[in-house]
Every structure is written in structure tokens, then in C-alpha cells.
């Protein structure tokens, strides 16, 4: 399995090189080769995901950069956290190749090789087990997407590409400092004082010997800069709608589908388990930022006149949900948050692909130009309806599973788990988040109604082929996404179960400091709280799955659903 992992990550790179070298062979060869490579990669990835065993993750581990005392390793492996992101990257790349089939005419070989390059970058980000290797892939993904947006985008593409690049680079350089600082902290302050870049070792060491509070807070902010821009969290989102609207269809699909998830993945991989005290301290802020994103994104989506922009703002809103789930820090919400990231990749990826298909036919993305398309394009309308439902969280589809878990977790925080001082705040956040769901249904259904119902209204198109419904190629591009939309919606436990071990580990590390912090406020003078909190940490180390908590009765851990209960909740 370790070999197939390596091949899966680097096969797209080889394909990209091949297509680039044989650029003379033209578009036909390039797109076929890209499809073949991405399909083989998908098959490999599917095999890896099927065989995945959370207990024994396999991978490669070679020395890469070694100069005493630095030893950066080329180490790749999958775990429960990255499993589905890994699969999603491979799946969406195939969709991207298919939706670009006709749309990309100009310099097609370059386009497909960049797309495959991006796939290698993404697969690498999610498998990297070395902190610097992670960063290398993380940063590397900027280059192909920069070119994809800048060369094949719409009118304002140059500005969008540069803004996208600068925003993400600015944040991620601070993240870089933070990552290096974490390594150095581990070297100097944690026995046995070695310089290791292994994410796993760092995570273990830092949860056993936490970084002292203020440095931890600084590190949190440094990492936050990069990941929050990537997600994007509320005030840092301004690059996203621009990049989305200007990017070519494939760029939007992969950007919304996978690239934004790197931010959330980064929080789960680094901030939460390595900097739990700082995370706990920042939680109220983070929750408010997330919910601000939810509401703000939804309101802006309502006001858009351009389909693609509308979906871009809906992304801001949905990613707010994902982050809300991540930061609410209890079992249902965290599971829901991660699941929702996958869901968003599927449904928004599908929606962007459909917008691209509409654009290919009518050369417009303005809502006002279109109407009644359901008559003309019934199949496309069906797909659009399904993805819309998935996006607004209709029960039985994936969006529901994610959003429900997130909101359940958030309300649980507000009702049962919070000390009184915080209960109101957290309930308010939960209620506002629910309003985001309502607004989401509003703008999505309204969009659907305006574009697909009413009298048929099409812009005049002068030349080009007559308007036809979806071709088999287009169906093939979207059908696999729909399969997963229903699969996740109906059997979420299939997807939650492999993540369980690793997510619970994150919770086991992150929840105790959180409890401690907010419990202390609740019953400050009681000395036994500290003792109890200490017990929690020890207990959680022994039993990573479920942090048993001998803390007084209203402690939140006692209200956590037990193992497997998440699925039953469904």
C-alpha cells in the first residue's frame, strides 16, 4: 500500500510532465492523457481508501533534507483525518478534466498539465507527515492554481490571480514561521531535545508537554493567519469570491472542492492538537468569526446577480459552518464539521461545474439573462436541483448529515455543557447559525427558481452549436459526485467511522484545556477543579477514544455521545 500511495501522489506529476513535453500533440491527446492519468490515480486512490486501516497507516519515510541537526523527511502516509480529503482530491480532478473537455481550447496541454500538477500538490498536502513537507506541498499548490486562474480565467483574471496568490502567500508565510517555531520549541523545551519535523511526534510531544500559554497564543495566531485565509474565515475572505468568479470552471471546482479544505485540515492537524490551550482561549472569537461568515456570506449571496458569485458567497457561508463545527469542540460538531467539508466539496464542486456548463451554452452567468431553463435542459435542471438540495441540506443527502451534526453539537454546547456565563453566547451563535441554514435555502432555491423556472429566457447566441442538454461526458463528470452525495446522506457512518480514531484523538487533546478554562470561570474558587482537570489529561492519554471525565456533574464530556452514537443520531 505504501508503494501505491507514492504512485498515486506522483502519477499526476508524471502525467503533467508527459503532457507538457508532448504539447505539440495538441488538445485531443492532452485531454485524453489527462483523463487517463486522473482516472488511474482515482483508481489507485480508491484502492488505498478501501484498504485503509486506521490502526496501521502505511506510507513511505525517507530522509530528504538532512544537515545536522535538521532532518526533514520525505514522509507520506494517510490517516483518518486526511483520508476523505485525499479521496475527494482525486475524485474532483476527474470531474475537472471532464468539465474542461470542450471549454478549454487555448493552450490545452498546458492547462491539463497544470491541473495534474495541482492534483499532485493536493494529494501531497493531505498525505505529508513531515511538517515542512506539508508546507512545501501547501505552498506549491499556489503555483498551478495561479496560472489556471490567470491564463484561463474571465475578464478580470490577472487581478484575481495575483490577489489570490498574495493573500494566501502572505498568510502562509506567517504559518511557516509558526510551524518552524513549533519544531524549535519541541527541540529546546521538550525532552529529549531533538529536532524532529514529524507531525506525529510533534503532536505527541506537545500534548504531553504543552507549550506555555503566551508563546502558544502567538503560535496559534501565526498558524491562524495562513489557515484562516485559506478557509477563508470571515474578515479574510475577500479574495475568494473574486478568485472563484474569475477562475475557469475547473479552477473553481478544485478551489472550492479541495483547496479551501486545506485551511480546515490545517486547523485540525496543527492548531487544535498542538496548541490546545490557545485554541481554548480563542474559541469564543473563532466561533463568532465563523458565524459571522455564515450570516454575512448568506446575505451577500442573496444579493448577487451572477450565478457564480452567488455560489462563491454561499461557499463563504458553508465554510463558516465547517469551521463552526470544528471549533465547537465536541464530538458531534467536530465530526459534522469534517464531514461538512467533504460535503461542501461535493455539492459546491458540482454546482460550479453546472454553472460552467450553463456558461458554455449561453456565455453568460447573469441570473437576469436566464430563465425557464428546465424546459430546455431538463437533465441539467435535474442535476442542478439535486446539488441545490444537497447544498441546502435536505435530509437523506449529505448536507443534512453535516449541518445537523454541527448544529446538534453547537446547541449541546449552549444548553447542556456551557457554564451559565457562556450559555447565552453559545446559544446565540447556534441560533444565528440556524438562520444561515434558512438563508441558504432561500438564496439557493430562489436562484433555482429564477434560472430554471418561469418562461424560457435565453440570451441570443449568434454562432456555435445549438443548445443541447447534458452530454454523456457531462453526466459522467457529475454522476460520481451525486453517488457520494447520497451515500454520505444515507450512510454517514461509513464515512465517519474511519475518521473516528484520529478525530477522537484531536478531541482528547483539545477538550481538557477547554473544559479547564471554562470550568474555572464557572466555579473559580473550588480547588478541586484543577486536580480534576489534571486527571482528565491523564485519563485522556490512556484512553484516547473517549475522554472520561471525573469533573463535576455538568462537565461536557459526560454529555458527549458515546462511540457509535453519532451514527445513531442520524
Amino acid at each position: 500500500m505504501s508503494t501505491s500511495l507514492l504512485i498515486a501522489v506522483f502519477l499526476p506529476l508524471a502525467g503533467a510532465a508527459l503532457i507538457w513535453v508532448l504539447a505539440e500533440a495538441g488538445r485531443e491527446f492532452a485531454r485524453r492523457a489527462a483523463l487517463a492519468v486522473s482516472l488511474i490515480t482515482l483508481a489507485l486512490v480508491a484502492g488505498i481508501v478501501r484498504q485503509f486501516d486506521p490502526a496501521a497507516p502505511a506510507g513511505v519515510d525517507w530522509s530528504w533534507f538532512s544537515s545536522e541537526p535538521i532532518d526533514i523527511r520525505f514522509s507520506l502516509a494517510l490517516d483518518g483525518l486526511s483520508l476523505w480529503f485525499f479521496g475527494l482530491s482525486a475524485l474532483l480532478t476527474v470531474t475537472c478534466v471532464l468539465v474542461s473537455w470542450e471549454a478549454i481550447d487555448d493552450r490545452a496541454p498546458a492547462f491539463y498539465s497544470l491541473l495534474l500538477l495541482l492534483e499532485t500538490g493536493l494529494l501531497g498536502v493531505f498525505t505529508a507527515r513531515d511538517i515542512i513537507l506539508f508546507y512545501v506541498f501547501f505552498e506549491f499548490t499556489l503555483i498551478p492554481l495561479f496560472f489556471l486562474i490567470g491564463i484561463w480565467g474571465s475578464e478580470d483574471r490577472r487581478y484575481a490571480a495575483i490577489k489570490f496568490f498574495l493573500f494566501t502567500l502572505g498568510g502562509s508565510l506567517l504559518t511557516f514561521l509558526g510551524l518552524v517555531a513549533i519544531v524549535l520549541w519541541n527541540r529546546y523545551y521538550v525532552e529529549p531535545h531533538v529536532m524532529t519535523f514529524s507531525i506525529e511526534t510533534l503532536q505527541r510531544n506537545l500534548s504531553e508537554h504543552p507549550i506555555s500559554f503566551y508563546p502558544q497564543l502567538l503560535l496559534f495566531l501565526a498558524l491562524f493567519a495562513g489557515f484562516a485565509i485559506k478557509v477563508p474565515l470571515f474578515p479574510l475572505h475577500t479574495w475568494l469570491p473574486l478568485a472563484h468568479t474569475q477562475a475557469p470552471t475547473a479552477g473553481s471546482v478544485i478551489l472550492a472542492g479541495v483547496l479551501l479544505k486545506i485551511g480546515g485540515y490545517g486547523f485540525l492537524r496543527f492548531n487544535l492538537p498542538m496548541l490546545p490551550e490557545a485554541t481554548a482561549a480563542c474559541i469564543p472569537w473563532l466561533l463568532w468569526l465563523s458565524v459571522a461568515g455564515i450570516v454575512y456570506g448568506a446575505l451577500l449571496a442573496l444579493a448577487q446577480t451572477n450565478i457564480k458569485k452567488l455560489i462563491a458567497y454561499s461557499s463563504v457561508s458553508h465554510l463558516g459552518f465547517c469551521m463552526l463545527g470544528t471549533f465547537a469542540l465536541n464530538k458531534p460538531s467536530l465530526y459534522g464539521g469534517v464531514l461538512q467539508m467533504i460535503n461542501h466539496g461535493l455539492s459546491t464542486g458540482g454546482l460550479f461545474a453546472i454553472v460552467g456548463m450553463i456558461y458554455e451554452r449561453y456565455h453568460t452567468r447573469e441570473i437576469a439573462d436566464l430563465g425557464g431553463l428546465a424546459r430546455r435542459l431538463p437533465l441539467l435542471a435535474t442535476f442542478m436541483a439535486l446539488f441545490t438540495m444537497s447544498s441546502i441540506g435536505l435530509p437523506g443527502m449529505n448536507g443534512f448529515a453535516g449541518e445537523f451534526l454541527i448544529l446538534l453539537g453547537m446547541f449541546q454546547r449552549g444548553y447542556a455543557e456551557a457554564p451559565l456565563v457562556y450559555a447565552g453566547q453559545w446559544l446565540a451563535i447556534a441560533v444565528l447559525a440556524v438562520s444561515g441554514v434558512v438563508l441558504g435555502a432561500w438564496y439557493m432555491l430562489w436562484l433555482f427558481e429564477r434560472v430554471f423556472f418561469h418562461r424560457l429566457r435565453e440570451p441570443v447566441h449568434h454562432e456555435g452549436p445549438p443548445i443541447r442538454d447534458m452530454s454523456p461526458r457531462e453526466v459522467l463528470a457529475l454522476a460520481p459526485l451525486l453517488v457520494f452525495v447520497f451515500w454520505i446522506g444515507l450512510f454517514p457512518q461509513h464515512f465517519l467511522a474511519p475518521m473516528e480514531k484520529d478525530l477522537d484523538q484531536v478531541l482528547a487533546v483539545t477538550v481538557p484545556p477547554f473544559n479547564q478554562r471554562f470550568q474555572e470561570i464557572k466555579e473559580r474558587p473550588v480547588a478541586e477543579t484543577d486536580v480534576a482537570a489534571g486527571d482528565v489529561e491523564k485519563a485522556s492519554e490512556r484512553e484516547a477514544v473517549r475522554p472520561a471525565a471525573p469533573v463535576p456533574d455538568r462537565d461536557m464530556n459526560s454529555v458527549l455521545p458515546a462511540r457509535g452514537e453519532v451514527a445513531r443520531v442520524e
Partner: protein
Amino acid sequence: MSNDTVYRLLPEAILIVVAALIYVVGAFFQARRVWAWVAVAALGLSAVALFMQSAGGNVTIGDDGPAPATTQVTSAGTLALDAGGRIDALGQYVRWLSLVVGLVLVLQSSRPDEDVQEPEMIGTLVLAVSGAMLAATTRDLVLLFLGIELISIPTYVLLYLGRRDAASPEAAAKYFFLSILSSALTLYGFSFLYGIGGSTDLAAVKSALASQPDDPTGLTSLAVIALVLLFAGIGFKITAVPFHFYAPDVYQATTNGNAGVLAVLPKIAGFVVLVRIVAAAMPGMENYGWRIVLVIAVLTMTLGNVLGLWQDNIRRLLAYSSIAHSGYMLIGLAVGLAAAAGGSQAATFDGIGALFFYLAVYALATAGTFAALTYLGGQGKQVDTVDELAGLARSNPLTAVFLAVFLFSLMGIPPLAGFWGKFGIFGSALNFDEGGLADPQVRNWFLILAVIGVLNATIAAGYYLRVIAAIYFRPAQSTPQSAGGNGAAFAAGLCALLVVLVGLVPTPLVGQSSEAGVALHSKESATVQRAANDRTVDDKLVTADATPAG
């Protein structure tokens, strides 16, 4: 003993002899491309000599025994030697770097404009390369100055030879006068060092300073003056703010090829001289030194990057970029000095090693960029503005890829070489603390420095991206001639290959550069008795020497 000296300086000697030959014979035989090949052959020969030195080494002193170096050092004259009697790792590293860069510069000049006198141009280039190499090998003030001037004086000639328009003589004159001024300042600084040590040997300066620590009325006061004068003089060579302001004007007014020379060779020599004197030969001065360097570093990178944002002329833009990169490299120096002030050896090497790694990475990417631009020019017309590069991705896709590689590397995007440069520099600034050894206040300064550094890297990305966006996203306005010759194209390709290779397999170059940093402090064991600390350093050095440099 003088035979030994000649043997050790053989690589430089070869270049100087060949340069002289080119000058003399070239007056009679102006064959265009032949001289470039002669120069390439000379560089190759020099490389062979260098390789033999680093592989063999003629003076064998027992590697295990305590280095009886006092006699060794005086008898070998004034070269910077390691315990084994060879040119030390720092010297070897910079010599190899200069040779590679020299190869690129000679290749890119293999087909200049018609009205340029070819043999003289090639000869002066070879001389300048030998100057950079000489500056790296020596520990003597006179030879150091000779090395610097061996770069400066050929550069004046190059600037005049470059092209025939009104701006060119102006630029040459500007560079000439300022360079003279900086040389004078450097010399004045050297004279104070001579006064301190009573000898032109830096080892004497060092032992004199080390014997009188913290005496504000005595030698220390002289040393402070020397330090400031040195920063002013060498600051000109490395375009450190506030001695940077000539660079944009001069680069803009000259050819792309000459700008490449200016952006690379003086910096290599400048940094090696600065490090040899300030970091290795002025004990007790580090506390003054790192403060000055830190302020200069912040100013240099910020000013370079911010002003770079508004440039339309490509050489002016790259001039500001080269200013900014000096700022990053000065971070490494500041870390090295501050760590030495705090008595921490490890970070010293880390900072200085990172500086020299960055220097190589910067030199490759910058020389490559100018080589690619030279290639894009042609007879009498060269690429001047960013706009002229628009649409290059279509008209000349391979050169476009080269330029993109260089610019992304200068930006510091992985997996290119520039990323590891930034990793080393910012890592050394963060590593400075060494787990609480350092004064917390000093540590905070370096944390802030690292943050300013990465913010600067973001600003820098702004103008590099503008160039890349022009190349890839904009329709062509005018097609460049692409008539700069195959040599220039090959030089650019070579640099691009190296940038990618170093990015993917950074270990060898990092190993060499950190040895170079270590080497700096090994000599003291030979001259000054600081027994306990340096034993470990010596051990490291012995093992390091087992592997050939380069």
C-alpha cells in the same frame, strides 16, 4: 613557502593569466566567439585546480594532533587556512560559487552587441571572477582589498563597454565615483584595523581585540569606528540601505548582462569580506555589530521591496529585488553576530551558514534572470520594460519557464531553491533563542525581525508576480528578438536546472554552506587560545574536510 601560496592561489592565478592573455592577444585577434570559449576553458581549468585542492591538499599536518598553527599561519602568509593547511571551507564554498556564477556570466556575454569590444569584455569578466575568488581565500587586509578592487575596476570598464547611449556613461560615472568613495571608506576602516592589530593579518587584529575585552577607551573605540566604516564601505558593494541608491539607476542604464554582473559578483565578495572581518575577526564587537546589521537589514529589505512595487523597468525592478535580498541575507549575519555576542556557537554557524546558502541561491536565480533577459534581447535592442515581456509565454515558452522558475525561486516558493534559502534565514532568526540561552529582549528583536522578513517576502511577491503575470497572462505587445545567443540561453537553462535541483535535493549545498559557516570560527583555535569551546568545532571541521567541497 611561497610555492605553497602560489599553489593555493592557482585557481585565481589561472584566471588572471588568461585574462591578461585575452587583453593582449585580443587586441590583434578580435574573433568574436573564440574568446568566450577561451574564458570558459579558463574557468574549467580553474575548477580543476580548485577540485584538486579540495580533494588533496598539499600540506599535511596531522589531522588529529593539536594544530601547531601559529607557525603554520605565519608561514603560509595571509590566506585563510583551515587546520589541515588548505583554504578553509568558507573560501572553497565561495570560490566554487564564483566559478559557477562566472561561467554563467561569461556564457551570457558570449554574443553581445556588435559595437562592444568582445575580448576586453570577456577578459574583464574573468578578472572580476578572480577578484571574488581572491576575496574569499584570504585573511589579510591587503589581499581582501585587492579582491574587492579586482571586482570594482573591471566593473567600471564593463559599464563603459556595455552600450553606447547617453545614459550609459552617466551610470558608469555614477558607479565609478561612488565605488571609489566606498573603497576609500573601506580602506579607512582597514586602517583602523591595522592600527588595532599592528599587522594586516586579521588573526593579529583578532588576538589584539580578544586580549582587551570591553575596554571602552582603548582598542574597542577604534574597533567601533572601523566597524561603522566597514559597513559603509562594504554596504555599497552589497547594496545595503542607505548605500543602495546607485543600484537602480546604474542597473537601468546599463545592459542586462552588466546588470547581472553588478547584482552578483560584488555581493558575493562583499558578504564574504564582511563576514570574514566582522563576524570572525572582531571579537567583542558583536554587540555593536548585530544592532547595526539588524537595523540595516530591516531597512534594506523593506525599502527594496516597497520601492520594487512601482517599477516598470525590468532592470530597475530587479535592482530593488537585489537590494531586498541583501536585506534577507543581512538577517543571517545579524543572527550570527548576536549569537556570538551571547556566546552561543551553534546559532552563529546557523546564521552565517544560512547567509551563504542564501547567497548561492540568490546568485543563481539572479544571474539566471539576467541571462534570460540578455538572451531575449538582440542586436542593438534589449529588453527594458516589464511590458516587453508580455506574451512571452507564447513567443518563447522555454525562456518564459526559465524566468518563472527564477522569479518563483526569488519569491521563495517551494520546491525551488529560494524556499530553502528563506527557510534557513528565517529559521536561524527563530532558532536564535536556543531554548532560552539568549537574552529575552534580544530574542524578541529577532522574532520581530523574522516577522518583518516574511511580511517583506509577501510584498516582494507582488512585483515578481507582476512580471510573471505579464509573461503568462498578457497578450504580446512586441515580440522580443530572442537573439542574445545560444550561450545566454544555455546559461539561463543551467541556472534554472540548478535552482530546481537545489530545491529538490537541498542537502549537499546546505551541507557545504553550513560547513562554510563553521569554518569561520575554526581558525581561532589555531591562533587564539579559546580551548574548551573550540575543541568541538575543530572536530567537526576535521570530519567535514573528509568530504571534498563542491
